[in-house]
């Protein structure tokens, strides 16, 4: 019952924030809404007992990717509101609050995943020789899904070579 309420509240939040991302006129606000969206998705992962995914979601999406977005947005300087510059202290406070939220969420995930009772394992997990969310994902990646995992490394190499080829002025 509680889980259902949490799930639907989070879903509504995610949808609402998603709409906010594409409707706000200010690009920086849009990216910040995206961060909140990602954080809510991470909470959903925790509710679904996928702690590993939740941590990855926060680290990779809310952390890495959005920082890149912000860099790009600020570099290309998409018609920012001039009043956004008026109070630098307010902006730094927002930044601090966001950083605190991320930290809190990460801490929450860790505390939650260590404190909760282990739930009844689902069928696939029962067959696995290791316990724990992260361990099982690791086990699957290095046994059953070794092929896609290794091909993904080729994919990353291609992306790296491609980025260098396209971005470097003259090799």
């Amino acid at each position, binding site marked *: 019952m509680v889980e259902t309420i949490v799930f639907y509240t989070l879903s509504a939040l995610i949808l609402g924030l998603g709409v906010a991302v594409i409707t706000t006129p200010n690009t920086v606000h849009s990216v910040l809404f995206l961060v909140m969206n990602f954080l809510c998705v991470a909470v959903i992962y925790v509710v679904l007992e996928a702690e590993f995914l939740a941590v990855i979601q926060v680290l990779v999406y809310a952390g890495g990717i959005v920082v890149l977005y912000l860099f790009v947005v600020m570099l290309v300087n998409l018609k920012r509101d001039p009043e956004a510059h008026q109070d630098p202290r307010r902006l730094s406070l927002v930044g601090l609050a966001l950083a605190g939220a991320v930290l809190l969420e990460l801490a929450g995930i860790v505390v939650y995943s260590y404190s909760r009772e282990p739930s009844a394992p689902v069928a696939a997990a029962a*067959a696995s020789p290791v316990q724990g969310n992260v361990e099982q994902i690791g086990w699957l990646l290095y046994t059953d899904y070794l*092929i*896609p995992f290794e091909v993904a490394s080729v994919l990353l190499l*291609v992306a790296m*070579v491609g980025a260098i080829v*396209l971005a470097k002025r003259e090799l």
Partner: protein
Amino acid sequence: MPAGFSAADFLYILPELVLIGGAMLLLSLSVLVPRRDGLLLWTALATVAVTLVLVVRFFGLDVTAARGLLAIDSFAAFFKVIVLLSAALTLLMSAPYLRVEGIRVGEYYFLILCATVGMMFMASGVELITLFIGLETMAVSFYVLVGFLKPNPRSNEAAVKYFLLGGFSLGILLYGMSLIYGVTGTTSLAGIAAALRGQDTSLVLVLAVILVGAGMGFKIAAVPFHMWAPDVYEGAPTPVTAFLSVGSKAASFAMLLRIFVVGLPALAQEWSLLFYVLAVISMTVGNIAALTQSNLKRMLAYSSIAHVGYLLIGVVVRTERGVAAMLLYLGVYLFMQLGAFAIVTAQRRSDIIGDELKDLSGLSKRNPLAAFAMGFFMLSLGGIPPTAGFMGKMWLFGAAIDAGFIWLAVIAVANSALSIYYYIRVVVFMWINQEEPVGSPIVIGPAMKVALGVALLGTVVLGIYPQFLFEQAEVAARTLQGITAATVVGGQ
């Protein structure tokens, strides 16, 4: 449950390992011994040749390897041969073009080989994640290859368009796959088919079919997901366009057939209808749009969209004969399409881009051999006997009639007749239009000669004696059907 891989698994993925190893070697060589373009080309070609030899040995097998993620069967081998041949021909036609454009060859060859690796996993994957990673590896390689002409704004535009639309379509595809996983609880295609057997068709699954169909439709450039194709084909370096229109299409068709025929036979009615509509509008829109093009690469782009329409007939029909005819047509399409693009590539010289239709004027006087080859490829694409294109179309449309899709065959025949107009127009420009010659004379180097020779030989031989390839295609189609055990009842 034993951990890790058996020795047999490594044997089964040996071709892919060789290809990846060759790609790494190329990357190192291009740094260690700079300015040795010939050596790099030979390394790339040798890698592809060794891989080809290794793959051919798997023809006739029917096993699953790597814990049920990869199928090593005739179907996969057939498609791997097609993508490897198209990679080899692309490499052969690239060298002079790269020199004229001043492109660094090491990274170029590396990306071609990596795209091929992705295609090979698309051909043999029988599990959604493996298929998706293969598709992504191919797609990312192509995003970069399309934008390789850095000073050329058209190439930049093409790369950005392909990247944005490609990313968007992959998202749609992935959403469809996640719905399938949500309903069935497995990503293995055989598992999905088993989970859906005897179940009622749910709306969620229909939505998933539409989403996956749209994602794959983008990759094969079927109308209405074709908008990117003309711009990307025109802007990309010509050999990359050739590879994009043959290799990536063939691999995407392999993945499409696997997902729908093997994984979703329970929804055959729904997806057959979906691809029926896509086939009809693809061939019609493609052919009508091609009529008015003045740029050769754009024209060939629309013509390839029309060919996707023809090829989709095999998916709609979904009989063993239909799929076999489609595989045969893909083999034929490989030679004639790559041949046509080889000529367009040779048209690029230091003083002229040469991809306009009028640049071909008087080619019959200036280089009769090239004009003859181009004319032959055009007739074959148009489906005029005794070329391979005619044979391919005959088998394909015959399979449609055989399965009771009379109207589909009628529309396809009408479309082929329409398409002859713009193919003949190319011939007219080469023989009858005798304007003042533009640009320096065409020089066809030894590598290009081999590429043209192979393409011409394939088009001629398959026109006279298609039975050999058709028999292989039948074996390949049978292994695909064999997994689901007689999916198909013809008719509508």
